[in-house]
């Protein structure tokens, strides 16, 4: 490689990494214009947002706490996208992961902690695996569009949760008190994840998530299975021709993707809530997609990306409380960031193709 080409290559990588940052900047500018039109001072709003998320220890630990499920979901989304399938079903997989983990921990609460804790995580992971695997199977065998089936599966999971939390899983204490707030009994303390900073919600699930990010990187780029997942995602027809059982890998990608979302649900109840509650999925199924995209669908890129989006979510709540700017601003910003990121992809693709042609 000639010297100028190498410089060009490094430059490309830098601009490639800078694009998501530009996308965020663009979204913030559009957001500021919207706020101005609504008569809100955007500087006050953004200052409150960033201060709330990163200005003190409490903000930072909350950011990392929110980043944990985002990273786990983001990893699942990376696997699905790399395998050429789109998993919109994160919400449902999170919910069922959390429900199954809670039911398992409560049901076997007398088991020793060293056994109960990993099995509880496994219960959540398996639930997500099944809930992701079904749309995968429907796509591979029946040709059902996975985007549509996962959307339906989200609604079904939501109703399953509503049913369980108002019936079989309703906290006996709620029944006794007659309040009937739809939540499960508390999980046995043996499955609570260690709090890393005292008196905050920041728990050891964050460490697990980072370890798994590295593991997913190795899975996708250092194993045959990962190579095949990516091959199917890049070109299903060529993969089939090369003898890869494509439909099996479609199911696998979706199932693995669901497994990570299910684990995210399990970790969320074990680390933060210590019981199954309504609304615990908190839109992570969608925000995780945004974080994964922002991290360029790379498992290691998802680590900083989920921290950034975790801080946005925390900052949004703080902003709403301190300067009364609705936190939904951040949902709109997330949407804009996605639009900017996918739109700017064209620029990256065109340039890399031009470079290829120049080389020939």
């Amino acid at each position: 490689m000639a010297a100028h080409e190498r410089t060009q290559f490094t430059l490309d990588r830098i601009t490639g990494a800078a694009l998501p940052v530009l996308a965020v900047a663009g979204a913030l500018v559009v957001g500021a214009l919207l706020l101005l039109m609504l008569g809100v001072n955007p500087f006050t709003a953004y200052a409150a947002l960033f201060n709330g998320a990163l200005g003190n220890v409490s903000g930072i630990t909350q950011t990392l706490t929110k980043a944990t499920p985002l990273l786990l979901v983001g990893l699942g989304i990376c696997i699905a996208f790399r395998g050429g399938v789109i998993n919109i079903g994160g919400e449902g997989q999170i919910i069922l992961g959390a429900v199954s983990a809670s039911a398992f921990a409560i049901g076997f609460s007398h088991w020793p902690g060293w056994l109960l804790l990993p099995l509880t995580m496994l219960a959540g992971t398996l639930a997500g695996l099944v809930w992701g695997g079904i749309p995968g199977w429907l796509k591979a065998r029946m040709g059902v569009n996975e985007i549509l089936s996962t959307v339906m599966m989200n609604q079904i999971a939501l109703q399953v949760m509503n049913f369980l939390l108002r019936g079989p899983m309703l906290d006996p204490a709620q029944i006794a008190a007659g309040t009937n707030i739809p939540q499960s009994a508390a999980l046995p303390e043996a499955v609570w994840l260690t709090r890393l900073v005292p008196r905050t919600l920041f728990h050891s699930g964050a460490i697990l998530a980072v370890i798994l990010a590295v593991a997913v990187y190795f899975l996708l780029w250092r194993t045959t299975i990962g190579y095949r997942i990516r091959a199917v995602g890049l070109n299903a027809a060529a993969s089939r021709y090369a003898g890869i059982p494509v439909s099996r890998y479609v199911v696998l990608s979706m199932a693995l993707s669901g497994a990570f979302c299910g684990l995210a649900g399990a970790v969320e109840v074990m680390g933060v809530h210590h019981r199954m509650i309504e609304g615990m999925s908190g839109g992570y199924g969608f925000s995780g997609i945004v974080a994964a995209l922002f991290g360029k669908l790379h498992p290691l890129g998802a680590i900083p990306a989920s921290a950034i989006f975790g801080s946005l979510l925390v900052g949004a709540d703080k902003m709403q409380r301190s300067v009364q700017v609705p936190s939904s601003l951040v949902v709109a910003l997330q949407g804009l960031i996605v639009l900017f990121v996918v739109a700017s992809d064209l620029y990256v693709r065109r340039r890399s193709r031009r470079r290829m042609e120049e080389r020939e």
Partner: protein
Amino acid sequence: MLNELFTLATLIGILHSGVRLATPYLFAALGETFAQRSGVLNLGVDGMMLMGAFTAFYVAFNGGNLWLAVAAAIGVGCLMGLLMGVVSVTMQAEQGISGIGLYLFGLGLSSLLFKTLIGSVESVSGFPKLALPLLSDLPIIGYIFFDHNVLVYLAYLMVPVTAFVLNRTTFGLSIRAVGHNPEAADSLGVSVNRVRYVTLIIGGGLAGVAGASLSIGLLNVFQENMTNGLGFIAVALVYFGSWRAVGVLGGALLFSLVNALQLWVQVLGIPIPSDIAVMLPYVLTIVVLTLTVRQIQQPAALTKPYERGE
């Protein structure tokens, strides 16, 4: 109690609600049919509907004429469609993702606007019932089909209009050509990207009306995320209806009838847990998608951005 479900009055009630509830699905799914027939999967319908619902509600809430409210909702929906066009057609973005972006944008912006401009849940007087003369006097049929607000009739009118435009006009031919074989359409002088922009804008406008049909027609309130995923169902209905207006009508009716049945089951207090009943339409959609999908031909260029060869 189960036999109460099978009295004539109940059955008529279910059919009446079913016909009425199909309205937002019809507008949104017919709009999406235009986009998908031209080869663009717009997954952001729910976000466009929310913006339409808010806009119509805001105009009506401030004393504006209801038709002005609908027009405003159409305008905002068209703008959202235009945005999708810039990202997915001109910038050739992956459509499954750009749609999610559009959805989140509409979801966030509509609740931001709602919280800053209105603040609390209020109601407006939306379109009143318009019993069609003579037709509504028919026994049973009259009540089921001809005793609704005007947006309901318009939704059903859109079915033949959509079918006509797609199948009997030059513009419809261009749409189908662009969705089926963009290279060939291009070589015949049809601008692929312009057709896709137009269908996305039509889809946006209809999604806007779909939103309005909720906020100033069926429910007469606006709440954050009031569509609750309805726009995603509308996208599914297009597949369900195999990209034809009549198929979409069938899907929308099936979906809304099961929904109406589920509501009546709850009203009558039949001992089926309501959560199980609510999930029925979604299970049904998956089942039907599974059973039908093999026999139908989707637009060949669906989800594939078009780039002219050199």
